[in-house]
Structure formats: C-alpha cells, structure tokens
C-alpha cells in the first residue's frame, strides 16, 4: 500500500473531516454480517416460538400462539425442572472449574519457574485442541460401569449420570477458565502482593484480600465460557448422561418434529444466558473476554 500525501479534496481528507463516515465505513461490513447472519436468525427463532406446527406433517403454521411458552412454563410439565437441573449443572461446572483453576493459575503464575512457565501453560491448555468428541468418548469408555478404565483400575465408577456429566463438562471447559485466570494473575503487579506481605498479611490473607479481588474479572470472564458451554451442551449428556436430559437435549430432540417448541426452549436458555450476562455486566468482566 503506497499512498502519497493526499490533496485537500481527497477521499482521505473527506473521511478525516467526517469521523462518522469513517466509523460507518469500518463497521458496515462486520455489523451487516452480524446482524443479518446472527441477530436476525436468533430473532426469527424467537418468532418461531410463537407459531405452531401441522399435526401430521410437522410443518410450520404461522399462526400466532402462546401455547409453546405456556407448555414450557407449565409447572405440571417437566421443562422448568429440566431448566433448573441444567442451570444446576452449568453452575456446578463453573464452580468446580473456578476451584480448580484458581490454585492452578496461582501455581503457574507465581510459583512455577518463569522459564518453565510457557511449557506448563501449554500443557494445561493443550487439551483444548484435542477433539471435543474424543475427550467425551474417552470419558465414556473410562466411566463404563462394566470393565471401563475407572472400574478396572480404581474398582469403582460413577457410571453414566449427572455426576458424570458435571465431571466431563468440567474436564472439557476447564482450560477456558484457566487461561483468563492465569493471564489475570500474571497481570497483577508483584509489588501489590509484596506490599500486602509488607503490611503484615500472610499468604492466605494476601490471596483473599488482594489477589482474588484483582483476578475476579478474569474469573467472571472465564465463567461466561464454562457456564454458556455447559448450558447448551447436549452431546456430552447423550454420551455420559445415561437417561439424563438437559435443555440442549430437549431442543435437539424436538427441533426436527416441533420447531416452535424447540424454539421456545431455546429462548429459555437464551433468557438464562442474557440474565447471566446482565448479572455480570456490572463487573466490567465482559471487556476481558
């Protein structure tokens, strides 16, 4: 790209005088893309939840109805319970990930020898790149109550069910928590920790009162991933959940036969996620994603 000094009337000069035009130019393409290819489909899906299907062919009938939402929210139907269970799984996975990621990152950022650090971090994060399916499948074979790895080496296995779902989802999404928390800890200036020690705080106190508050935004940023990825999962549940079902499975199971209902359930997960984002938006952690 070679440009000479632009004459006063050049497009460059025009754009300079019109920051709005410049901004529009920059954002036109990405915003068109995101709105047309992401926001519109999401809105359409939400719209679909107000429609119904033909009882024989299962085709969409564009007649306004609140029936799908009524069914999702009907306490005599199991879907609210499913939503709560799904929420519980997502929260458990997030909490366990935090409990594991914080000491792990602390070790990496503040104890491990600096020259080993990149290698250790790579070791922790590498599983992110091993195929998702293969990892779940590995756990399925390990958890098999009849002759699986755990049963034959440790003598016991949780089998397939909710515990297995939480363990495997934690396994899958842990790196998404470790990465931001590790970076967050690295960005805490050592002088702050020294100052805390200097003021008489012991390790635990410094950790709780200085380090943890400083990496809180990073933890929250990580939790967006662990929470959202767990919330929408259905494959892990299919493979290691036994007969357990989460919201994702309901969407997956009804999407072919009853799209409006699937859309209503999907809207419920979107609602939960928006609620979560709203709750954490005050912390400013979204800037850290």
């Amino acid at each position, binding site marked *: 790209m070679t440009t000479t000094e632009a004459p006063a009337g050049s497009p460059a000069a025009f754009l300079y005088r019109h920051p709005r035009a410049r901004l529009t130019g920059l954002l036109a393409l990405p915003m068109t893309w995101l709105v047309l290819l992401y*926001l519109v489909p999401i809105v359409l899906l939400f719209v679909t939840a107000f429609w119904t299907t033909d009882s024989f062919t299962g085709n969409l009938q*564009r007649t306004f109805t609140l029936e799908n939402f009524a069914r999702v929210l009907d306490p005599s139907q199991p879907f609210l319970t499913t939503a709560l269970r799904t929420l519980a799984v997502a929260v458990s996975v997030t909490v366990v990930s935090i409990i594991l990621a914080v000491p792990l990152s602390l070790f990496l950022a503040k104890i491990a020898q600096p020259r080993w650090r990149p290698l250790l971090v790579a070791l922790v994060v590498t599983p992110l790149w091993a195929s998702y399916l293969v990892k779940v499948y590995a756990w399925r074979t390990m958890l098999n109550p009849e002759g699986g790895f755990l049963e034959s080496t440790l003598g016991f296995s949780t089998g397939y069910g909710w515990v297995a779902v939480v363990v495997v989802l934690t396994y899958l999404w842990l790196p998404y928590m470790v990465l931001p928390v590790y970076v967050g800890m690295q960005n805490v200036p050592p002088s702050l920790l020294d100052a805390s020690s200097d003021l008489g705080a012991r390790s635990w106190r410094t950790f709780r009162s200085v380090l943890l508050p400083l990496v809180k935004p990073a933890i929250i940023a990580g939790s967006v991933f662990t929470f959202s990825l767990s919330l929408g999962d259905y494959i892990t549940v299919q493979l290691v959940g036994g*007969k357990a079902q989460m919201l994702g499975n309901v969407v997956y199971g009804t999407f072919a036969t009853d799209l409006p209902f699937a859309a209503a359930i999907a809207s419920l997960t979107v609602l939960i996620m928006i609620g979560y984002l709203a709750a954490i938006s005050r912390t400013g952690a979204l800037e850290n994603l």
Partner: protein
Amino acid sequence: MRFKHVTALGVGIAAASLAVAGCSSSSTSGGGSSAAPSASAYAGPVGEGEGELNVLAWPGYAEDGSTDPKVDWVTPFEKETGCQVNVKSFATSNEAYDLMRKGGYDVVSASGDASLRLVYGGYVQPVNTSLVPNYADIFSGLKDKQWNTVDGVNYGIPHGRGANLLLFNKGENKTEPTSWKDMWESNSPAKGKVSPYDDAIYIADAAVYLMATQPDLGITNPYSLDQTQFDAAIKLLDQQKPLVAEYWADYAKQANGLASGSISQGQGWQLTANVANADGDKVGATKPSEGATGWSDTWMVAKDTKNINCAYKWLDYIVSPKVNAEIAEYFGEAPANEKSCDLTSNEDHCAQFHAKEEDYWTNVYYWTTPTEQCLDGRTDVTCVPYKDWVSAWTTLRSA
C-alpha cells in the same frame, strides 16, 4: 458494558420478534395440507448420470466401506454410473423427515412413519416404476401398500422389512427371553440395564405390549390409539423409566452397551446384534411372543432433485437381487427382491427372516404415522395424532 445495554438489547429483540410474529399470523407455509399433492412421475428415459447423488439412508442401507471395508455397496455403484454418492445416515424417522424437508438430498430410505408425511408434505415425487427394471421382482406383498402408494400412485420402491427385536446380553440373560416383560415390569431382573428406542414412535412398542397384557383396552393397531389407550401406553412408559440405563438413538452405541453388559435388554435391530457380536457371541435377538413393531422401508425420490438420472439408477441398483441380498443380510431384514433369496451368502437367510411367510408378519406392526382419524377403522372416537405422540414423548424424556 452496562446492565442497561444487555436488557435493552433483550427487550429490543423481544419487541421486534413479537411484531414479526403478529404480522405474519395469517400466512401458512406450503405443504401443510392433508390432501395428496398431484404431481407426475418422471417420464424418462433414464439417461446419463449427473455425476452426483445425495443419499439419506438408515445406517447399514448404503454402506460405503467406512464402517467395515468389506461392506461397500456405494463404490461399485459409483464406478458403474459415475454418480458420486454422499451418504448421510439418520437415527430416527423424524430426523430423516426433517432432513428431507430441508432439502439437499436426492433419495431417501423412508420407513412407514415417514413416507406418508413426505408424500403429503410434498417433499417427494411419484416414482415411475417402469423405469426401475428390478421392480418387477419385488415381493407382491410389499407393493402398492398404504405407506408407499397414495391414490394408486407409487411413491417409491420397497427395500425390505424387518421387526424391532428384543436384544439381550447372553451373560446377563441365562435363558433366552421370550417376552418383552423384563423391559416393562417394575420387578424386572434387568432393572437399570434396559435400553429402549429414543423416539416418539416407541410409544407403539408400549401399545404392542399392552395388546397382549391388557386386552381390555381394546388396542388392535398400536398406531391407532384413542386417548384412554394412549394414556395407558404413556403410563407403561413411565413405569419403564426407572429400569432404563440409556435410551438409544445410535445403534452402534447400543451395540457397545449390549456387548459390554452395561445393557441387559433392549429393543433394537438385528444389525445391532450383529455389530455387537463382532468380538464374540455375546448378544442374542428374538421376536417375543407379544409381537413387535417393525418397518417396511421404501426408497423415495426428492421432489426437487437435480440428479434424477442418478436417483433412478440408484433405485434400480439398490433393489437389484445381489445388492438387496447383501444389504438384507448385513442389516438383518427380509429383502424386498424375490430373487435376492437365492443370492444370500447364508442360504437360509430368507427363511430365517421369513421373507416369504406372510404369516410371520401378522404380529409385526410396521411403523406408521398416527393420525386423528383412527387407522384401525374406528369412527366413534378420534385417535391421538402424531404431534401429540411427539409432545408426550418429549415430556416423558424430560421428566
């Protein structure tokens, strides 16, 4: 980012959505009506292939060597016709129906609970059987049936039929079971190790069991249930739930469980048992005394296919005596082509699968899509339509 932005966006989406939903409330999407569409079949002749064919098939129907290098019907077809075949396998009729509806596939192996929906939905075209030479050799008992022919118009080529069998792990079941009862009754020795099919159509399996155990309900056709009968079936399914280890949609996953013993009994296909026994004779399959649900499959052609010549070539190829025999043996079903019975590697295959005995099939209830108008001929009641089967199944699985 502040709270108000998040909420504002949410509210914005919601408002826009409601506006759209309300405005278009009067229009109806195409294909929703219940009148059979009037379309004409391809007149022919079947010419040069278009070079490509997208096949939607039950697993085991269109093997290309990727499951087992020795099992490959696709490659010879590709060499013979120059039609490059992409195979997508599906786990349930609903999945097949949905994929056909969304387009992109040229031919599909549809079971009875999908075929009529495809016809009435307008997603498949009539088939000109005179362009399929091998059609002549199809068992007459499979031709012109209500699931492949509407108002005298043929919509596909029969492929084969089979029953959904009781599969069992031989280690867990010392004697061969002869009844479905261990899959249904609360005091089952197989408790926690039962594997039912994960689809709304499985409600019919409960109805089949009820036909034998509760004759008072008066069920004569498991796909034609009035509300009382339907409720009884759902109750039975609820009773089954504590017994269940996993519902299956992937036959190979079920084969895994049956072989390892983490599943003791399950409803499934002969193919599943065959796959599970690859490592040794561990799994048995039987049609219990109560009878069973089953399938009679039809190869159909998508309405807007761009590869009509390849599609007709495929229809003829896939029911040709040799290929039909191989598939029937591999999948474990009765072939559709009469001549296949002489070509199976196991000479007794047709006998074992009762291809020629219509009697055997009397208590096999082929998958059919339930409609409000009772299929068993009753007119004094309305039956529970398929949509409600699906929604009951969704509720059952989520509970």
